[in-house]
């Protein structure tokens, strides 16, 4: 009688079983690798803009305060993107004929707004509020990274929920004195944990309630 299975059937079966097991084991790390890769998250990817605005130059070299352009960071959930006339506060005098600034001049002349591409974007069901964070001693650089070193702006965090929760669970590890909030050069002290706990108390930061779902989702 002819054999039902060929000679190598056992080997194939064993190999398939092993592949399935390894596949299952590998699935989660691979998925996580892809999800966390900069291809998916854009972390560290420079975003090309119509106007190649350099934070490195304006913040790093010129030492501009964040709030000069992002005017509503202290008052609203939205930090604000400067309108063209803010740029031309200086650039009507400096580099007013520069080729790089042509889109800004154009926008002001024609009244059509500039279009920027968002670098840091949260999903629509997340309600982040800038004003409460900066008023309670969360520095801009904690989330946005060292913009003073970025010639073109890029993301430094993937903005997965874990990035938010890390801090909402242990705000003492990230909080800084209020006068250092807009300071990209601030470095946490060696005893950040103790200092942080002290600041949490001083600034009256709510620590239990910020883990409620409706703090961010509503």
């Amino acid at each position, binding site marked *: 009688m002819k054999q039902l299975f060929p000679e190598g059937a056992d080997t194939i079966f064993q190999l398939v079983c092993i592949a399935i097991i390894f596949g299952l084991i590998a699935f989660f790390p691979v998925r996580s690798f892809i999800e966390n890769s900069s291809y998916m998250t854009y972390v560290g990817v420079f975003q090309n803009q119509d106007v190649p605005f350099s934070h490195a130059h304006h913040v790093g070299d010129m030492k501009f305060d964040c709030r000069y352009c992002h005017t509503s960071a202290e008052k609203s959930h*939205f930090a604000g*993107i400067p309108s*063209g006339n803010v740029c031309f506060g200086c650039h009507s005098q400096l580099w007013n004929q520069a080729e790089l600034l042509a889109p800004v001049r154009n926008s*002001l002349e024609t009244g059509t707004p500039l279009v920027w591409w968002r670098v840091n974007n949260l999903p629509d069901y997340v309600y982040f509020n800038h004003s409460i964070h900066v008023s309670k001693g969360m520095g801009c650089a904690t989330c946005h990274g060292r913009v003073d070193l970025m010639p073109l702006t890029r993301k430094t965090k993937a903005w997965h929920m874990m990035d938010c929760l890390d801090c909402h669970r242990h705000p003492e590890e990230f909080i800084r004195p209020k006068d250092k909030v807009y300071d990209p050069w601030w470095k946490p002290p060696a005893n950040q944990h103790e200092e942080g706990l002290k600041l949490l108390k001083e600034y009256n930061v709510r620590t239990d*309630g910020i883990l409620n779902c409706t703090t961010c989702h*509503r």
Partner: protein
Amino acid sequence: MSQIKISRRQFLKRAGLLFAMSQLPACKPRPEEIIPYVKMPERLVPGNPKFYATAMTLRGIARGVLAESHMGRPTRLEGNPQHPESLGAIDPVSQAEIYTFYNPARSKGGLEKGKEIVRERQIQIIKTLAASLPERQGEGFRILMESSASPSLEAEVRKLLRALPRTVVHRFDPVSRDPVYEATARAFGQELQPVYDFTRPSFILSVSGDFLGDMPGALRYSRDYTEQRRRSSYATRLYSIECVWTLTGAHADKRLPVHPDQILPALLYILYRAGLHAEVPVPAESALRGFCDETAGGLKLAGAGGLIIAGEMEDPALQALCHVANSRLGSTAVRYISPVEVLRGETRSINELVEAMRDGSVRTLLVLDSNPVYTAPSDLAFEEAFLRVPDRIHYGLFRDETAARSTVHLPAAHNLEAWGDGKAYDGTVSIVQPLIQPLFDSVSPLELFSLLNSEAKSGYELVRDYWRYKAGGEFEKWWRKSLEDGIISGTASQSSSAAPVMNPDEVVAASQAPFNASSFTLVLCPDHRIWDGRYAENPWLQELPEPFTKLVWDTALFMSQKTADSLQVQHGDQVEIRQRGRMTQAAVFVLPGIADGTGFMTLGYGRPLLMQSKAAPSFNAYLLRTSSEPWVLRGVELAGRGAPYEFVSTQNHFNMQGRDIIHVVKGEDKTGRRLEQSKDPSISLYPPQPQEPYEWGMVIDLSSCIGCGSCVMACQAENNIVSVGKDQVGRSREMHWLRIASYFKGSEQNPQVYFQPIPCMHCETAPCEVVCPVAATSHSVEGLNEQIYNRCVGTRYCSNNCPYKVRRFNFYNYVDGDTEILKMFRNPDVTVRARGVMEKCTYCVQRINEARIRAQRENRRIREEEVRTACQQACPTGAIVFGNIMDRESEVAKARKNPRNYSLLAGLNTRPRTTYLAYVSPIGEES
């Protein structure tokens, strides 16, 4: 070229793989645009809303509102606390105006002989018309408009009439206030308008006078009435005699439904018994006699604290009688002012217009913001006469039935995009200021008249010019203050000192006709939601449940069981209603508490030309209406029982079946009859609720709730709740987070009705939370039952486990995400929910968070008045109290200590954070 050898099967496999791989990059998030201002407006903080005072008009009368604007887009309307009628509250219709403004069904441009025309052509048409008029002094030119209370519009129309003396302006309102003025003209010898003060009377008799519902001033009246009732420890009495259900009747201490022809004799008898005029026959029915005697006794006892208030649609003789009676009582609760509507003397009736159209003397007719082809009395045959006019210009928000029969249609501007002004019920003027440039190619009514006057001024200039002359002094300062306040201070009308000139015995003598109730009488009334049909295009209002039957998108022929039996019809029967050769269709709805031999229908449904895609065919009561009998139709016959009609209602059972869902107590210090109680409330498997500095709670006073539906509409506007259409509501898929349940109790003929607003109870031991497999619903430390949309997978277990049935599921993608214009007015602070997720009342958590952030930024505690839910804010009677129950001084904590406070279905031990204060019925029965 060599042939590729590939089987069909292989090809499909590879093509499929290729297609799947081509979709892979879609998994990657794409960058989004962000667009700043070119020049940012001064003092604007991007992301923070701004509020502007303006006004919405209903029946031509203005109601002050504050419009919320997000980055230049009006998104929501709320009451203006400075406005004398609103005092911060708002009615459902005004709130729904925001939808009307963005309605995709709105007319987006002009039409000339059915063809779309651009704005320039529209202006040209008006200018050509204006140029042709002076030649013959406006002969052959007529205007048909509705009543208006706009002083600047009055000035423009007057200017036109001065320049063109042969032009005639006609006025027609489907729901007219003319009977009010006829009555005062009879009673006082001059046209006056009554204004009531409900902080004064201790005994009120309402003769179909719906001062809690549709009367101008109703918001203020409801607030004053309920506040006075609370302040007087429920000592004020409200008696109501009416033939149909009104909100006032529903809230009365005692209500008697009587046949419309019996109302006047009953009133006469009451007044006779109260010693106010000569003797009249005694009513034969003992129930009616008893009611009348009791009322008369109350009025007599109250003296100057008595008030008789008649409905605005009632017979002028009856209304006049009430005015005289109030005066004889010396009632301090009513004063009279000159009519707030303008141009009453300069306008003529629609009957004269139809006559003129018929004899061919009308060459051009301008129909201003009304829809007479649908609403005109059927005996006039308006449409036929209208078509004889060579130039028919329709100006309106929608391309409605009249627009379809016109040669030219011009789109109208909404109050949110046009300058104007208007008087409130007491004469106080509000400036209507726009929040945005016109969305479409529209001009405002003021600008239209300015073009006809060959001036072509902008609405802004017209309103300013009018008031510059009135204001005097420092105009700019005055103007800014008037805009900011939303009212012009000191413009409330002065009371008239006119004394009654009518002898009530005249009415007595004239009303001796014997009452004959043998035939069926049909009463028509404006609809609580879509009024006379003008809001039929608004799905928010169409889907707002009718207060008594919870019917949506529809009207019916309402009648009592006894009447239905005598007419041999049943609930749901489709019948033909016939009267004097006129005929319409309707389905019978059996509703308790309607006078025997009477039925009623509301106006505005069954419009033949409705753009609204979610609408379904309904019944048109206008087909029966005549100019001589606008409201009460006698000798009506029913014929032809058709197929059963399926009503769509959000509540299917109106009987409490002996359960204590609504507690009724005799006095405010009493506790209700507690049938359903938890055996031992201290025992629970749930972890104890933590005691944080803020624990949110809500208390709803059933005694103050009048069932108007303002809270439902406020919730809808605040929380991006969609209307799903009649078909979906029919499958119990309505999305309202807050519903008002209504229950009938007592006899079939004359039951008591109770309203109970039911939002999420935010149970401390919430049954929904434990059954969610993905923890999409959880409890916050501050006592909120949270629903997280992005986590929800749509198992619906939570809804099944909710004893209060307050959870709503998105069975489809109800949100219209494709229509660009609808994206403009959604609240940016609340997630727009997609298909497959559960949603429910959040206690307006976005407002709590906003207030907390503001307080935390300033390093202080949240002030009580900072957190107000949308329903609480809109409620005209202050029935809803919300706040921090840990703060002993807060209103909500005090209300929870009230002996009347009880939990719904307390036996389940869900420990709701939303509790109720029992209904106080001092002369009713406790239960």
